[in-house]
């Protein structure tokens, strides 16, 4: 971390950048916030640890509109989002100085809390263990058990776009990685009724707070259709289950082929809805129907939904597959 701060100071000093976009120490040990640092002095609050889950690519949309260049710290997985934003002309590559930072996985404090650890005052890491000081005494928790779901199925440690790397294990495979489609497959194997009940249960928790949308680097619309009157969809209410379904289906559809599977939607959902399972369904379908595609791997390929081949599967595949 000190190396990151040192480098940030250098780049500020030599005028390469006029601001630094990183994470600022929070007040609970697990709640650092994305922050801009405009001076060496401000960098004293800089932090980079497992709780720095926020994908800063989203913030670069605004940062690119500001005067001068911005130094941004991106984790390997965040760089996919950045590339995707370049492709969609939402950020300007030349306005960003990207330092790719190594990532050991980002953490979910709720996993710790759900294990019954309350009153956390501070957290430190000791090898594979999180040491937690709480008002109810000292506690320990295995680092890997606190990983966000997305990190258990890590895309890899390779940065897709950067100016320099610090602490990154480029080319290295992520640790033991699960099958990211496991849950999607499980759902697919269920009966339609079971699937319906699963999603009904999950989506009915939605409070329409838009955290998923606003944190999502692919949801970069200036004006979301759900906020505009273009389709008479601006209902802003969770008055009926249909509204939530509609919102989440369309949101997933709009990011289909553009979603890098960064997992921010699920990370930020206050109701813990596994929204990534919607996006991953599209990713899985796209891979199966149109060939493997990873959004954000490059900045110039055509996205699956703005592309086609003469031999594409027919929509009837959905029925045929169901009958198997």
């Amino acid at each position, binding site marked *: 971390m000190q190396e990151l701060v040192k480098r940030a100071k250098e780049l500020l000093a030599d005028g390469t950048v006029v601001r630094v976009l990183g994470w600022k120490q929070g007040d*609970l040990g697990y*709640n650092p916030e994305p*922050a801009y640092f405009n001076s060496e002095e401000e960098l004293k609050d800089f932090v980079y640890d497992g709780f720095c889950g926020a994908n800063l690519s989203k913030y670069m949309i605004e940062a690119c509109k500001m005067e001068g260049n911005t130094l941004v710290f991106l984790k390997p997985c965040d760089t996919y989002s950045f590339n995707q934003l370049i492709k969609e002309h939402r950020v300007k590559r030349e306005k960003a100085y990207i330092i790719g930072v190594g990532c050991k996985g980002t953490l979910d404090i709720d996993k710790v809390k759900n294990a019954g650890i309350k009153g956390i005052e501070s957290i430190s890491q000791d090898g594979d263990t999180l040491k937690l000081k709480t008002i109810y005494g000292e506690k320990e928790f295995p680092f890997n058990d606190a990983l966000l779901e997305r990190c258990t199925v890590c895309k890899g440690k390779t940065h897709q776009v950067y100016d320099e790397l610090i602490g990154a294990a480029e080319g290295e495979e992520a640790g033991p990685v699960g099958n990211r489609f496991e849950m999607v497959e499980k759902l697919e194997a269920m009966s339609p009724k079971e699937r319906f009940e699963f999603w009904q249960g999950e989506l009915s928790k939605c409070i*329409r*707070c*838009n955290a998923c949308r606003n*944190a999502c680097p692919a949801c970069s619309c200036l004006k979301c259709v759900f906020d505009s009157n273009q389709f008479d969809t601006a209902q802003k209410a969770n*008055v009926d289950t249909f509204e939530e379904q509609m919102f989440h289906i369309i949101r997933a559809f709009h990011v289909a082929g553009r979603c890098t599977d960064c997992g921010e939607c699920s990370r930020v959902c206050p109701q813990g809805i596994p929204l990534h399972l919607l996006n991953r369904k599209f990713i899985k379908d796209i891979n199966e129907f149109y060939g493997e595609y990873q959004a954000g791997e490059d900045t110039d390929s055509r996205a699956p939904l703005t592309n086609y081949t003469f031999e594409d599967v027919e929509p009837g595949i959905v029925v045929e597959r169901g009958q198997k």
Partner: protein
Amino acid sequence: MYKIEKSRLSELFAAIAAQEDLFLPIKKCDQANYGLWTEEAEVDLDTLKTVKSPKDCFFPQSETLYKCKNEDGKLAIDPAKLQDKPFVVFGMRACDVQAVKVLDNVFLNDPVDSYYAARREHGILVAMACHEPEETCFCKVFGIDAANPAADVATWMVGEDLYWKALTEKGEALTKLVENLLTDADEAAVEKEKKQIQAIIEKLPFSHLDLSVFENSELMELFDSPKWEEMYKPCLACGTCTFVCPTCQCYDIKDFNTGSGVQRYRCWDSCMYSDFTMMAHGNMRTSQMQRFRQRFMHKLKYYPDNNDGMYSCVGCGRCVSKCPASLNIVKVIKKMGGEA
């Protein structure tokens, strides 16, 4: 003071629900939220804070105000029925109870919001003391005692028993309804529990925030503070803080075309949204900084100035744990000069 064994709580709930609608924290898909009690519902009294506050029971996120229909060229209006039967909200924390009072100041003062008033009139608040307050809690800052919730009925979970004490007439009436399930109890165990709770609260990291800066500064001085510009940037402009907040009371009124008519409904709105109070000419607050400032100035300055010093934050800490960008009112209070 009465008590009932924890293991017999479902009988208590059944007894209440037999007479009145009962809302209480229910776990569904891993999350606790207030919901209507049914026999199948998984009641969750252990989770300190539900994701959404019980605000929904009095001021639902969405409610239909009236329906209109075109009947042979004439407009027929069918107003929504007001709450006319008593209902019980069980398990409210002290902060959430205080939050209802914050809402009362808004909705029960002239002009009275009849939808809200009807619910308040018929709602019976059963509060529960916080056995193990958490690091995100800071109700003490607002003079709320988590050990002594001020509702119609206060309850304490001590060991294997729930202690029950009616505090108002409504509370007495409810107690009568379930009297046969309750047994008399002395207050010793509860007193001990209260002391324990208060001791924990003293140790909480945010319990000693200092609000004097908001009391002592001029409104415009706070409003013009350059610190807002420094603070707002991580804000994603989502409405999470607003929608989990027990005191946020802003709503929008919209029409829904059902095909056969129009339903006019109101739904929570968030001052964090860019289309909040959108008018024909646009929005008065054009930047996220202004929207961000609005929310916190309202909680900490405008509302108290208009309501005899009552803050419209109750320190429940929901925003502290739910903000996707880890921003929250505590950080704001500290930054504005309230670091204890």
